[in-house]
């Protein structure tokens, strides 16, 4: 029990050091005590910025050839925090009487802003982006102050979301997911070798998927076989939902839309992909991507505040804040590109579409718009982050996927039926019937509203996000994309939840008659009930029964045995089809990502679009064949791990295989000649 408590404490302390404090102090350095961000926003953003900061800290170590150890990690984080704090103190000492966001009002070139406007349901006013007003209450304070009912509803939604996800994860928390095993191998490699992994040249992995696990593993000393990796993913998943909440609140400036969005992305479909199932499945890149993508969009949307303003009301504060937000947006974007290629790929399409459409729709004001963009972009903080990021990206640590062969696999005509786009029926099962219908409705309504608010970058951000992901998943040919459509379709649930929330809000709550008209209220109740039933029944259906981990522990026991009994001269082959948690076996050996060899899913050997070696299949399925004998000779394989219920017969017939280990789920054979 004492050990359990100690582990828990070290985990939470490590989590705070790696995933919260760097970002929190970075925000302190750039915004000081300004109340331009609400406390909740600072909390959510701190995690995202910490994740990216830790990435860059390790890249700096890589460039400087500093080993990544517990000591150097603590020193690096402490140094980063100290520098941020020093910047904050220096700024505070220079201008003690004013919050940093309201320091200068003489540099905009468009005069001084007017007084704060009252919150309304129209597009966000620039005052929203500023610091404290003369009355001492900021727009952030107003926006994040909820009525008692709203506050209670938010707490209830958070509680239920946690509850459903925790119930699901409690059945699947032990380390047996294939993807998580692959990722944790590299994190363990990082911890053992004190440097960033090179992934043996494979483009499938990206460094951002490993750094936080490696850092927390280093600091806490916890085993990668414990619950800490999925718990970190769980935390990131929840932060992704909160990122949607603050993004929605900032863009629509309607608390009820944000609460509805939290309801639709958090409580409903809380288990299916890309939610808790991705957490337990160890789909690290998607989980992190679904946090960093909305976070980057949040920063871009806030940086765009200056573009929304009429020229007469532009202030130095607006310009300054836009610069800072754009710097953070670029910083988060680099984090995204260092974390997950697919999400980054989607982001590129969304961002390009967003910028082009925005400029086209505001063609009349193009001169003024471009002039302001120029002022924001060609500024010290923005260029410093952009150039610094590019230097890191291309000269210090370049992700493996930045190479022609990796790009070629993602670009081109769809090579399989699963890449030709999702049908509506596919989309329905992917994001849920209610969210699909309401999301389309919300898209149409927002398009209608956007016609009158063309300067609103935030509205267009949400529209671009949903339209691009929708088209990428249904019509990939339009973009010359050759990626699994269902993987892209999973991304749709995030923007469609926001748009569904907006659709419900627009149809019902925005109507003045809502309070009085029983018919409208009844219709609202029916829609909520429809979405609730759909979303909750989906979670209930996907709740697994209590898993039996007997197979998993046998895999671990046999791996431990084999790791102890073999040396570098031996080669091991295991089966992926019938052995529980087999991707974790490599963590016992730590002799390379591709050690032990693995017989993959049978269908993969029959995939005409991707021919592959047959040795791993033949050596287990037909060990007496001439092909298998040749393979054994070529690969030097002398140990074979299989599930005896499926694969022992073919070995028992042969006199050159000793059966050296036998448990109900694992048999190990030693090839003697």
């Amino acid at each position, binding site marked *: 029990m004492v050990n359990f408590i100690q582990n828990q404490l070290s985990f939470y302390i490590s989590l705070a050091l790696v995933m919260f404090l760097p970002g929190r102090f970075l925000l302190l350095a750039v915004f000081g005590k300004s109340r331009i961000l609400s406390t*909740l926003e600072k909390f959510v953003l701190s995690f995202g910025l910490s994740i990216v900061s830790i990435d860059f800290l390790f890249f700096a170590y890589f460039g400087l050839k500093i080993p990544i150890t517990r000591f150097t990690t603590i020193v690096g984080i402490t140094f980063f925090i100290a520098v941020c704090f020093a910047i904050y103190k220096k700024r505070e000492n220079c201008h003690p009487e004013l919050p940093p966001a309201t320091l200068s009002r003489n540099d905009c070139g468009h005069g001084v802003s007017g007084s704060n406007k009252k919150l309304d349901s129209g597009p966000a006013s620039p005052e929203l982006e500023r610091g404290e007003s003369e009355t001492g209450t900021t727009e952030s304070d107003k926006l994040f102050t909820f009525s008692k009912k709203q506050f209670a509803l938010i*707490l209830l939604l958070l509680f239920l979301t946690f509850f459903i996800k925790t119930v699901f994860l409690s059945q699947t928390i032990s380390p047996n997911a294939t993807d998580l095993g692959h990722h944790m191998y590299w994190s363990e490699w990082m911890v053992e070798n004190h440097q960033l992994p090179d992934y043996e040249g494979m483009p499938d992995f990206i460094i951002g998927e490993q750094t936080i696990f490696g850092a927390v593993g280093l600091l806490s000393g916890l085993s990668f076989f414990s619950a800490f990796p999925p718990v970190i993913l769980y935390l990131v998943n929840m932060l992704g939902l909160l990122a949607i909440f603050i993004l929605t609140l900032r863009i629509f400036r309607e608390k009820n839309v944000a609460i509805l969005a939290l309801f639709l992305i958090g409580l409903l479909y809380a288990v299916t992909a890309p939610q808790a199932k991705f957490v337990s499945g160890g789909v690290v890149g998607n989980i992190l991507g679904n946090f960093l993508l909305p976070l980057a969009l949040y920063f871009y949307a806030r940086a765009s505040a200056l573009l929304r303003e009429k020229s007469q009301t532009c202030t130095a504060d607006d310009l300054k804040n836009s610069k800072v937000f754009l710097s953070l947006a670029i910083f988060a974007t680099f984090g995204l590109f260092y974390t997950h290629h697919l999400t980054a790929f989607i982001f590129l399409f969304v961002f390009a579409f967003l910028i082009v459409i925005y400029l086209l729709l505001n063609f009349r004001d193009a001169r003024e718009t471009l002039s302001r963009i120029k002022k924001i972009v060609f500024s010290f903080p923005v260029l410093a982050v952009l150039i610094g990021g590019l230097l890191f990206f291309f000269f210090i640590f370049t992700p493996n996927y930045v190479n022609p062969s990796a790009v070629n696999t993602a670009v081109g005509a769809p090579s399989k039926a699963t890449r030709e786009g999702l049908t509506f029926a596919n989309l329905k099962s992917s994001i849920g019937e209610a969210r699909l219908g309401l999301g389309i409705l919300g898209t149409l309504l927002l398009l209608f509203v956007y016609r009158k608010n063309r300067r609103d970058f935030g509205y267009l951000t949400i529209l671009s996000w949903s339209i691009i992901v929708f088209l990428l998943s249904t019509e990939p040919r339009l973009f010359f994309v050759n990626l699994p459509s269902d993987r892209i379709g999973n991304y749709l649930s995030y923007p469609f939840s926001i748009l569904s929330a907006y659709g419900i809000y627009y149809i019902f709550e925005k109507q003045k008659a809502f309070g009085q008209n029983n018919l409208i209220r009844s219709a609202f109740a029916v829609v909520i009930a429809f979405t609730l039933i759909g979303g909750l029944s989906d979670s209930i259906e996907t709740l697994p029964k209590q898993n039996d*981990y007997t197979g998993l522990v046998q895999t671990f026991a*046999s791996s431990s045995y084999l790791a102890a009994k073999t040396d570098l001269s031996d080669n091991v082959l295991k089966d992926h089809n019938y052995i529980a948690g087999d991707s974790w076996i490599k963590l016992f050996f730590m002799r390379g990502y591709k050690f032990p060899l693995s017989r993959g899913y049978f269908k993969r050997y029959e995939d005409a679009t991707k021919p592959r070696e047959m040795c791993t299949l033949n050596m287990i399925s037909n060990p007496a064949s001439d092909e298998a004998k040749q393979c054994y000779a070529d690969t030097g394989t002398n140990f074979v791990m299989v599930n005896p219920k499926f694969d022992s017969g073919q070995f028992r017939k042969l006199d050159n295989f000793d059966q050296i*280990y036998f*448990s109900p789920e694992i048999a190990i054979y030693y090839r003697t000649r």
Partner: protein
Amino acid sequence: MQSKKIIIFLIVLFVISSAYLFFVDSRDSDFNIGKDWWVVYFDEPKKLSWNFSIENHSDKNDFKYEIFDGKNKVDEGAAIIAKGEIRSITLDQKIGRIENGKIMVIVSDGTEKKEIYKFTGLGLEF
């Protein structure tokens, strides 16, 4: 103030959830808790050694073993092994050197039998 309350609520929910998940994982990953299995293996798989171990993670603890050289029983014995324990059985001195044949170890817990075997003289080192 409400933001702070929401954050505190989030932290409490996360800590409770993660502590529970850590607890569940430590229980599920334990070789013994709620499990019923046992394993038999050679201690020196690459050598011409007959020493083997029984690792018990089941509720049964009365194990019997028989050693065969081909079809001939050359030894037998019994071991009481508590749940979570490993018992190594030393046979090398008892059986000695067998040049060509198949040594088979059959272990039974009374209801279930498991076997391991080695072919002798086929690449194993002494």
